């Protein structure tokens, strides 16, 4: 019994030490974001007090230099609509593929599965050229690209789930005179909800954080820069590396993620587990 208590205390000590290790980098960045930019590389671990304290100056420059709030807006727009498009369209496609048994649907299924193992570098050059030719260098164009490149995993996950839905309910609905569209949205989609949440979360995390695709397609020449693109743009020197502004921007970039995380933590963790196990 006593032994048990000791091991409990030891476990807590280990866990708390780990918590400290895990949040140190974040505290470090927050702390330095309030420091004058020249003090950051000189005294990285000192508290921002006295002459080092820069108030919100770094935040102001960071936001101004990168037009940060617009970037958040574009990131949010692209993420929300890409995720919506992915969830709606790929689940429809998956249902179709499972319900219509034909050579071409099997072929489609294998193409989608195949695309899951292809790394982005394989298609990055040709895809960005094609996107340019088709004028997809806008937030709406990005939605199309994310739908296309994200389709593989999402169709795969939905297919796995649709297979488990008994046919009888749908047949009953159709006999009652529902069109396939009505049947799908009234009967099938509600059943798919848990998978839809998983797919939405996995894709939201990917799209929000993705750097290379928006950088190559939207690039630096349009106004539609997303958050990762502006962070890299600020740091890809811009002639004058400003560590203060960078720290502030890192903090600002983390905030939406943390808020999102704490509001739907349960779904996120479940979704990630489900995604990993199926993917």
């Amino acid at each position, binding site marked *: 019994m006593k032994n048990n208590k000791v091991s409990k205390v030891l476990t807590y000590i280990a866990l708390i030490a780990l918590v400290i290790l895990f949040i140190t980098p974040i505290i470090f960045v927050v702390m330095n974001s309030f420091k004058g930019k*020249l003090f950051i*590389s000189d005294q990285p671990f000192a508290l921002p007090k006295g002459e080092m304290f820069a108030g919100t100056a770094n935040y102001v420059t960071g936001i101004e230099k990168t037009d940060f709030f617009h970037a958040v807006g574009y990131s949010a727009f692209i993420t929300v*609509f890409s995720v*919506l*498009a992915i969830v*709606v*369209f790929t689940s429809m496609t998956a249902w179709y593929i499972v319900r219509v048994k034909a050579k071409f649907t099997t072929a489609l299924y294998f193409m989608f599965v195949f695309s899951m193992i292809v790394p982005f570098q394989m298609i990055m050059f040709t895809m960005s*050229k094609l996107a*340019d*030719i088709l*004028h*997809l*260098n*806008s937030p*709406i*164009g990005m*939605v*199309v690209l994310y739908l296309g490149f994200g389709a593989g995993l999402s169709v795969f996950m939905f297919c796995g789930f649709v297979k488990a839905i008994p046919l009888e309910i749908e047949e009953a609905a159709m006999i009652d005179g529902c069109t396939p569209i009505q049947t799908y*949205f*009234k009967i099938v*989609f*509600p059943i798919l909800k848990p998978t839809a949440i998983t797919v939405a979360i996995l894709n939201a995390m990917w799209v929000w954080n993705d750097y290379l695709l928006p950088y*190559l397609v939207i*690039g*630096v*020449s349009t106004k539609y820069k997303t958050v990762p693109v502006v962070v890299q*743009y600020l740091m*890809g*020197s*811009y*002639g*004058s*590396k*400003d560590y203060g502004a960078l720290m502030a921007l890192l903090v600002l970039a983390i905030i939406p993620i943390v808020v999102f995380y704490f509001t739907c933590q349960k779904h996120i963790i479940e979704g990630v587990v489900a995604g990993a196990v199926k993917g």
Partner: protein
Amino acid sequence: MKRNKLLAVALSTAMVAGALTGCGGGSEEAKKDDSKGSVYYLNFKPEVAEVWEEVAKKYTEETGVDVKVVTAASGNYESTLKSEIAKTDAPTLFQINGPIGYQSWKDYCADLSDTDFYKSLSDQSLAIKGEDGGVYGVPYTIEGYGIIYNDEIMQKYFATSGAKAATTDEINSFDKLKEVVEDMQSKKDELGIEGVFASTSLLPGEDWRWQTHLADLPIYAEYNAKDVDDLDTIEFTYNDKYKNIFDLYIENSCTEPTMLGSKGVNDSMAEFALGKVAMVQNGNWAWGQISETQGNVVKEENIKFMPIYCGLDDEANQGLCIGTENYFAINSKASEASQKASVDFVNWLISSETGKDYMTNKLGNNAPFTTFSDSEKPSDPLAQDMLGSMESGKTSIPWVFTTFPSQTFKDNFGAALLEYAQGTKTWEDVVSYVNEQWATEKAAVAE
């Protein structure tokens, strides 16, 4: 409840579908001014990025023509231009850095011989001409670089006992410079500085002062000795001269050589502006960075230039390194209207009152056009000192680095310098690496 959700899904589907079909319409919008053309300038100088934005806004206000300015990150101009120019909305106005730049971009360079801005060049031989006799690049500024020093600190030093020189004029050779610098470094506490030289910034992308500007001197000497103006392979004959000055920079600095990989140009300029160091190698364009540093303690009249003495022949007559790597070029693949709009934009920059004011006073350009009178030269201390040096009869060193093979060459050179500074590569290895890289990159570009 369920019904509501269904409705929401249906609605959002409709929205997305609408958005998808609307995407063709979205790009039409950007093209509505096709008849008028629009300007897209890909700017090379990050330090004046904001000024260019202002110029663009002003021009659009005055003429109604859209001007978009995009600034490439430092050290990324070539790669940004490469990806941008292949796009359908490509830059209409960009810059090439000299003959090498022209070779890479000649498929995109329009002939400028009929433009007003070419005709008003004060010296038309400055422009870049193709083999067919056409004009493909027109310089818009003449610049100079050297060692910038803080005269207040120098005077303080000259007053110390046992000073190795009494005036800055006495410093006119590498040997003298070395003697003075080393003595100053040993008296740094007395002088109230942290080191003689500002950080030799070797952060990748921030190392152009060394792999491009400083390297100009030994390569120029090599060209001179061989009586050529370009080479497919170099011997780096004067690498010892380069090493002379580079060692002096890193050994007598406010920053440990092993920490140089974390420093950017801005850090160096801030150290100078805050009076922590007495000298920094840079050009007249750096004035903005010095004057804008918060807590700046250096007085305007104390900021001066001296040539980069590294032990070449006839140093007594050596002047600053003067030249340009900034040539406007117009994209021949852009629409007629946009090409014309870009020509008009440049004409406006060099002839209208507003344009000229921006060019000289805000962009700090020493513009080589007859439309600028003598009073319309930049008035900052570095530009003034540079103009003085050009007229003093000393021999300016031309910018031959415009013949350096490629950005990759420069980046690799910079990386090797960093390793040398940190003590992880020997100087011999740097030299042979530079020679090898020069040859491969020249061959790759020629292909």
